[in-house]
């Protein structure tokens, strides 16, 4: 069975801004499905429509076999939603927030304690602290607890790790894996490409369009270029000079390094590239082939489109 089915979904805000154009995908039950893409790509719009907070302009969307427009009330009881911005009450304590949302869902904390226990255990030392005073990671854990408190069949997590430190991010994903084991389907979005590999399947989304849907492994295997990393002193001045290098290639900054992908006859182009660097007097430390990450794949897919 499908937990989410979306067909030709369109959303136009104020008759002007096209936030989604012809988005179609499905999420199987028990899957962790990732929406990956830069900010402003339409991820939050999809979440808002699925959470029945926003009406689609056209197209179909169903959650747990129920239509988001007509069966909003039923859907609301079956899903847990964690919005992109912290939306709990900052002046209520951790425990008060949890009790409040449990009551709103006609549920009690003790009924679903087993489900949230691993997260709740980390929150217990802070249970009398006001939610607004928590760290970013703790805030998200509390929000997740509140979203899980009524044992939803589907979790919608809109950028749960944005603004969270790397250690807490890794922890958060461990928690998600755990939640998946309890049979809960998870739709999660993230702007961090490295997190995409932790999903069963991902959809790469940009400017309201889905570029690719597949498992992270398949997406990485489908990478067509030959990717090299090069360490230079000033990435951007080198990129400026590379404009004169007229063999087909694709280069972009990647952290402190520069990634460059060649598409035809990599050995020959690589030699040309090395001599080009020497001609231009560009000093570089390291030039070595690497395995593409999801981010490299994403960039390739965007450029080739």
């Amino acid at each position, binding site marked *: 069975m499908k937990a989410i089915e979306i067909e030709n979904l369109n959303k136009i*805000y104020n008759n002007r801004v096209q936030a989604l154009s012809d988005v179609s995908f499905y999420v199987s039950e028990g899957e962790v499905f990732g929406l990956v893409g830069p900010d402003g790509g339409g991820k939050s719009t999809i979440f808002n429509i699925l*959470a*029945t*907070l*926003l*009406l689609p302009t056209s197209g179909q969307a169903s959650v747990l076999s129920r239509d988001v427009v007509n069966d909003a*009330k039923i859907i*609301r*009881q079956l*899903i847990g*939603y964690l*919005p992109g*911005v*912290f*939306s*709990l*009450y*900052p*002046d*209520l304590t951790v425990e*008060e927030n949890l*009790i*409040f*949302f449990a*009551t*709103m*869902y*006609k549920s009690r904390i003790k009924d679903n304690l087993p489900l949230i226990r691993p997260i709740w255990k980390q929150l217990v030392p802070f249970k009398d602290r006001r939610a607004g005073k928590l760290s970013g990671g703790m805030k998200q854990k509390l929000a997740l607890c*509140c979203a899980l408190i009524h044992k939803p069949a589907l979790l919608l997590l809109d950028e749960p790790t944005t603004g969270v430190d790397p250690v807490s991010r890794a922890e958060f994903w461990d928690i998600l894996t755990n939640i998946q084991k309890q049979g809960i389907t998870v739709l999660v979005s993230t702007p961090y490409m490295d997190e995409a590999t932790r999903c069963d399947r991902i959809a790469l989304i940009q400017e309201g369009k889905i570029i690719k849907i597949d498992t992270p492994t398949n997406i990485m295997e489908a990478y067509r270029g030959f990717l090299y990393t090069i360490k230079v002193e000033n990435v951007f001045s080198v990129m400026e000079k590379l404009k004169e290098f007229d063999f087909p290639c694709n280069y972009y900054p990647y952290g402190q390094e520069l990634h460059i992908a060649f598409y035809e006859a990599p050995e020959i182009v690589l030699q040309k590239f090395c001599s080009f660097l020497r001609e231009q007097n560009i000093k570089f430390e390291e030039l070595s082939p690497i395995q593409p990450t999801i981010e490299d794949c994403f960039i390739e897919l965007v450029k080739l489109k």
Partner: protein
Amino acid sequence: MRELLMILRKEFIHIWRDRITLLLVLALPIVLVLFFGFTISTEIKNAKISVLDLSNDSKSKILLNKIAASNYFQIVSYPNSESEIDFDFKNKNIKLAIIIPSNFENKLEVEKKATIQVISDVSDINVASVLNSYFRVIINDFLNENYVTNSEAATFEVITQMLYNPEMKSVYMFVPGIIALIMIIVTALMTSITLAREKETGSMRMLLITPVKKVYIIIGKIIPYMLLSFICTLLIIIISVWVFNMPVEGNLAFLLFLCFVFMLTSASFGMIISALVRTQLDAMMVTMMGLFLPTVLLSGFLFPLDNMPQLFQALAHFFPAKWFIIAIKDVMIKGSGFMEIWKYLLILFIMACILITISLIRIDKKE
């Protein structure tokens, strides 16, 4: 039901933990009543006057003593001619000059008609009209005391009879107005700001996607602020009765019921405002400009409605404060009951019903 109690509890926690706002809200009515009571006053004490007594007989003496004995006037000079009166106006800052005709006693007793000339400084219209009224009251008293046993005296002209507020105490005028203002601030403003805050921070979305009934969300928002506003109203009434001797002629329970209905109306105005705006700041601006200002200007609280252009008089009908102030004045000062003011109650109640219904529809509206 458990959900409603939980929403109420949450709302009280918000109020309790925001100490500064809570203190401000409770201090505001006290400060406003004391401020208006002691400073902004249309009541005038010890106005300087001149008296030109052309008859100088026993009756004119009695009248002058009476004037001097009142708190309202202070006789600063006794000019000898009318031209000296003019001098007094210019140099002694008198507000009023009184000329008692010659043969005053004789005219009163024989001709049964005497004319006292009153000259006022009308550069400040309000002061002049208030002083004129005070003077008429004193003349009235004078006639009653001196000629009431005399059957012939019944033929005297009675100038004005001032009802309900014979001393024209300003406290009677502004206490109802302040109650209205405070209730607008506490119920309408606070309701709209806190609702807009929930919209702004996103917690409203979290609430909306829970299965909780929308009515509970709205009731849960209104009740705490109505309660707070109720406390403020009690504070205002207690201070105005104790400090300023404001009468409460009508039934106190009925008075509080009237306040309750008005609170409901202003809370519903707050709800509808928050439904129209996106941020707390907008909510505040709209409530101040759209509700608070009209309450000050168009309710008849500070400026009489009868003197306004037709357009503004018509506009005033749409703001709840006008109806409330008419009703509460009737209850507090005239002692009116339900039968006299049911019309105003009904208007306020209908306003509240319409606005709450619209808010209920709007709260869940999706783009």
